[in-house]
């Protein structure tokens, strides 16, 4: 095969042939070496390579650097002059593929009934044909952790890659964690007015009883899994076995200080890997989180402050505060379609105290580490999966980021999506160029 140069100009899209989404196919496995050259490469670990080149083969990165030698033959070389190359972004917390239209109940598959459902698995209802998925790829998001919600122990999440025929193909790391939704540990308003002492129902106490029920479940499960044989099989206990050998993490969804302290107590008692999801007020107790080495999947900075007295930009600057405190954290975005704004949440974090490369790590490498896939992806390093995004400009700034190419495990994926197709359809109607 001849050495091929493909020049990508300006803002034009790499794919100009429009097809209905049903004929947008998942890409075939990578065959042959590919090089992207003359780009600003943001490695994901803080490092930036000017005028760099990245090469990958069989789905793995083979070379990254300013002076990468490109073999003379049998390679595809793309000159992406002036553009930026990033690791594929990771949405660390989402119900993507578990719902299609939020208000339409029939499309919702992310919340089971019951309080203790650790054996429930999100991966089996992940719908690779969701029209939403392609709209995330368009913004550089290539991996997502899909999470069941509801109750106390909602089930296990899995990490998926966003270009697949079915959920088995999509699975990137299956059942990587068990999710615990901590009940709110906040005093409740008195229905009889603010000055009343009100009824004796103490919401915090009731919530702590629920927490205790989760603890006692875990104690029993730990004991069960330590035993060798059982006359009766308990699927719920077996579902959390991985927690105790650290092949799974316990993701505790908690936001307020008391909740975070209680979450830390889980790490202490069970000697397991605990990750905080949410962490609104994590900035207030970074010492505790650091002491127990608890990482945080931080809720989106694009949020209102909790309290009217809080600093007006508190949610914007929380990432910088965690960074400064030395907490391992990544930035998340709520929901499913909303995930396409994930990079901009990182951008806001950069506007309010982080460096741009730190903010990038918060949606790439740090997310990978926290989700247990840091050895495979999250940064553009030799040996890792070739999960790569090419952007015309700063990917964290909506003003300047148009994604021109993306690769998952070396496969060049389609950047077509429903929105672009409708756009073209109506440009056609109105004779717009």
């Amino acid at each position, binding site marked *: 095969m001849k050495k091929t140069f493909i020049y990508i100009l300006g*803002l034009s899209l790499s794919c100009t042939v429009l097809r209905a989404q049903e004929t947008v196919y998942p890409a075939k496995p990578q065959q042959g070496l590919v090089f992207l050259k003359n780009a600003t490469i943001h490695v994901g670990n803080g490092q930036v390579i000017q005028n760099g080149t990245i090469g990958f083969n069989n789905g793995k990165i083979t070379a990254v650097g300013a002076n990468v030698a490109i073999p003379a033959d049998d390679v595809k070389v793309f000159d992406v002059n002036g553009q930026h190359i990033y690791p594929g972004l990771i949405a660390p917390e989402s119900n993507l593929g578990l719902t*299609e*239209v*939020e*208000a*339409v109940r029939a499309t919702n598959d992310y919340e089971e009934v019951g309080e203790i459902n650790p054996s429930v698995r999100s991966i089996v209802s992940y719908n690779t044909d969701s029209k*939403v998925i392609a709209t995330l790829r368009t913004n550089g998001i290539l991996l997502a952790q899909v999470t069941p919600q509801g109750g106390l122990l909602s089930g296990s999440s899995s990490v998926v890659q966003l270009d697949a025929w079915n959920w088995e193909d999509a699975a990137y790391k299956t059942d990587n964690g068990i999710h615990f939704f901590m009940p*709110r540990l*906040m*005093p*409740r*308003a*008195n*229905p009889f007015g*603010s*000055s*009343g*002492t*009100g009824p004796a129902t103490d*919401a915090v106490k009731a919530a702590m009883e629920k927490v205790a029920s989760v603890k006692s479940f875990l104690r029993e499960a730990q004991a069960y899994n330590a035993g060798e044989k059982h006359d009766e099989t308990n699927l719920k206990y077996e579902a959390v076995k991985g927690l105790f050998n650290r092949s799974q993490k316990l993701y505790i969804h908690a*936001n*307020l*200080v*008391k909740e975070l302290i209680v979450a830390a107590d889980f790490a202490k008692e069970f000697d397991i890997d605990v990750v905080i999801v949410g962490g*609104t007020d994590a900035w207030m107790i970074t010492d505790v989180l650091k002491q127990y080495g608890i990482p945080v999947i931080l809720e989106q900075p*694009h*949020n*209102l*402050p*909790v*309290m*009217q*007295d809080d600093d*007006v*930009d508190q949610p914007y600057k929380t990432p910088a505060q965690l960074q400064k405190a030395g907490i391992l954290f990544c930035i998340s975005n*709520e929901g*499913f*379609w909303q995930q*396409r*704004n994930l990079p*901009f949440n990182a*951008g*806001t974090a*950069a*506007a309010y105290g982080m460096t741009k490369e730190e903010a990038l790590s918060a949606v790439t490498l740090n997310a990978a580490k926290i989700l247990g896939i840091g050895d495979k992806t999250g940064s553009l390093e030799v040996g890792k999966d070739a999960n790569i995004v090419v952007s015309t400009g700063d990917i964290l*700034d*909506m*003003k*300047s*980021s*148009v994604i021109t190419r993306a690769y998952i495990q070396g496969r060049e994926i389609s950047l077509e999506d*429903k*929105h*672009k197709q*409708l*756009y073209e359809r*109506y*440009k056609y109607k*109105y004779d*717009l160029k």
Partner: protein
Amino acid sequence: MKSNPLPAGTPLPVQGKKHRRFLAARLRYFSVTAFAGCLLAGFTASAQQTWPVNGVAGPRESCYAFTHATIVKDAQNTLKDATLVIRDGKITAVGAGAAIPKDAVVIDCKGKFIYPSFVDIYSDYGMPAIAPRTFSGRGGGAAPQMLSNTKGPYGWNQSIKSEVNAVQVFSAEESKAKTLREQGFGIVLSHQHDGIARGTGVLVSLASERENMTILREKASAHYSFDKGTSTQDYPSSLMGAIALLRQQYLDAQWYKGNPAKEGVNLSLQSWNDNQGLLQVFDAADKWNALRADKIGDEFGVQYVIKAGGNEYQRIPEMAATKATFILPLNYPQAMDVEDPNDARFVALADMKHWELAPTEAGAFEKANIPFCLTTADLKDAKTFLANLRKAIEYGLSEQKALEALTKTPATLLKAYDRIGSLEAGKLANFLITSGPVFQDNTVFFQNWVQGNQYVLKSEGWQDLRGTYNITLTYPSGSATYPVTIKGTPSSLSLVNKDTIPGKIEVDGQLVKIVINNKKDNSQQVRLSGVIGQQPGVVNTWSGSGTDDKGQAVSWEAKFVSALPSKEDTVKKKSAPQLGKVYFPFSGYGYETLPAQQDVLIRNATVWTNEKEGKLENTDVLVRNGKIAQVGKNLSAGSARVIDGTGKHLTAGILDEHSHIAISRGVNEGTQSVTSEVRIADVVNPDDVNIYRQLSGGVTSSHLLHGSANTIGGQSQLIKLRWGANAEDLKFKNWDGFIKFALGENVKQSNWGDRQRVRFPQTRMGVEQVLADAFTRAKDYQKAGPNKRRDLELDALVEILNNKRFITCHSYVQSEINMLLKTGDKYGFKVNTFTHILEGYKVADKMKAHGAGASTFADWWAYKMEVIDAIPQNATIMQRVGLTVAINSDDAEMARRLNQEAAKSVKYGGMGEEDALKMVTLNPAILLHVADRIGSIKAGKDADLVLWSDHPLSIYAKAEKTMVDGIVYFDREKDLELRKRISEERNRLIGKMLGEKKKGAPVGRPVPSREEIYHCEDLQAGHQHHILDDAYQQ
């Protein structure tokens, strides 16, 4: 109370049961026949009554003379050593030299004070208990209730209860009466606290007599509120709905006077009209609601007496401007238990400050010369009234004003000052006998006389028994004398013998118990029991029997020897409390004094003019008198303050076309499909911290919209974010009125659960019919003759037809957009703006032909079925087809980043940067018909400007300074100072609250302070969940 022992020294007998029946009989005779709504009294004696007597009748006139008292006739006039004479429940004489009738029972009140007893003008004494409110309607699970379920010929709305007369449901409640009498009250104006129109109030005394006798005026007042109370009907669900309902009632009542045939008999309207001549009292219960109530009053020529809620001190100039008399409750918030710092975090500084400052309210009203009464209303326990009143005095209220507010002011309001409210001949014998000045901390209330009936509140201490005595024990064989000293306070005595060994004395009415200790170890005790002598002129001759220190039976007598050397009762003068300042608005981020307008020169910035000049580098902008005076290079600053804009970007302020911030108590009146009568203008809430937060994101104006729960929603209000201003001053002056319409899933209640299948429409077909019906009615109404019933709902629609009010329509899918365009064509109205309009790109050509503009989300989709085809290129297509396109927020959080939302069209649609910025500045101004004043940087326009740290479309841009009318309302540096102040002030108040707890004061649960955050899709997905909402879940 009456069975209590009499105080020592009070001559017997007090008037008994028979007398009361006698008095009652005469009152009955007159009150039924003679006066309609007049006070009793002023009649000649007649013993006739309808009530039979079981036994022997014993009529009495009960004449009493209270002598040697300090008589406080009213707040201004005090008589020393004076006499008060009463007969038949009325005062017959007051004065220093008042003659004592021969048949008077004389009560020596030496050292005592006599005051007119108090009047509570806002009571529910004797009213039936009101069933606790049950939440009904949407979201609560119940099916909607469209009409009143009150049976009978009454009005359509269950919360209008003008036909209720308190007198007809009144029944005396001795336990409550007793509590109120103990607090000094003799008269109350009572009404049923239920509904928006609550009917009439009854003026009653607190005598524990048959109801027939205690009613002073059957209908003394008419009452209103914004709270629909126990009404189970859906409408009104919001504050603005309640206001609209009140307005319409005034109009309907007027119209009803013409006996409209189709209305039939409507007793609610009839009573409404009948009640207009009475004192009109409005339970506003909040500072802004006080202004809202007063405004309704102004519209219909009514001056309400306004019942306050306790936070009115936060806006004293506005309260004064109402010219209303206020009724102030004294229910001060309890300190909260803020020991746990993680709980204390959820208590807002505003709530802490309110806790500290609430007791200043009455004093603040006095200082501002705003007339007011005081009430026990809202107190959890009426027994705390006096203690709270004393607190108000400690916090700045004068005692004189306090007395006036409890006597003359309410009596005068009720036009009853000729009968109650002071001590003068001819008035009711309603008075208090106290040990000292009425509001002093250690003053004891001895007796409260109501309509000539004595109620003993405390007998201990009536007579000062302190002094030295000789107690003589008499044995069969002789006698022994013990000199003792009785000291302490008049109501709490102690006894010591000559060796100063403490003994014991207990006085219970006339009975006394004495223990004399001869030894400190109590081994030799003399124990005596007896009575305190009552013979007139022979005071303090005590006698009885007992046992001596050896156990022998003795008789005894005590003789007064001498008084104790007089010692001034020292009343500790409390030092004035140290208090924080009131902020405007009352929020952590409020100002101590409002910022002033200042001339400013922004020098050397990149200026995005939004005019044909485009983006100008290194340019100056001069602001003078709140307007942009000049745009150019090297401008002379003159006296203007210079702000260096080097490296920064200056843009016009952001205008959010679709906002729901700063709205009180409900953004949707979605209980009917057409509610064009409701107005956001009525419910603007200046305290919402989101005003400040949005200033920090460069927003300077917000179009506050009604929600999208119904097809024709309410009228909207454009405001400028003048943080600190009151509602009127927030409003954008002289703008064309707008109104919210809505189509699609919200309107047809698709996502509201299975019970919400009652309200028409349930389909998009029905939505068209709602519109057709509404505009058909409006056109017929317009044609109707001059005597038509004025209908505020149709008035608004007629305004639309006459191009005097303009439509912003919530809409998503192309079919419904097209439908509204065609409906507009058919009925002759234009759709000014389609808001949300996520499928606008599909029918942009049709919208253009109609002349409609668009205001859309940048990238929202997939949150419900009707947004399944929403695309982020929507704005770009519509703009390229030629529409005026804006990007809106509908979200308090996203509004802070509208510049970034605009930038998304650069990303997704390749829109030019200047065009993108216009979508959140100039274009919404065009859509709202205010582009002549805001939206671009041009000489003559309002100086609503934002200085950005970076390219204004960039994620990295921060608003450093945001100004409205040339006033800098947000300044990132000043903001840092505010944060510091918040932290210090919180610290101080938490310390103060902890101090309360340490002192043993009761403390309440630390209740998370909630903000009202609304979206137009109230019940919809798509918006973020706020953590504090969890504290309010049922």
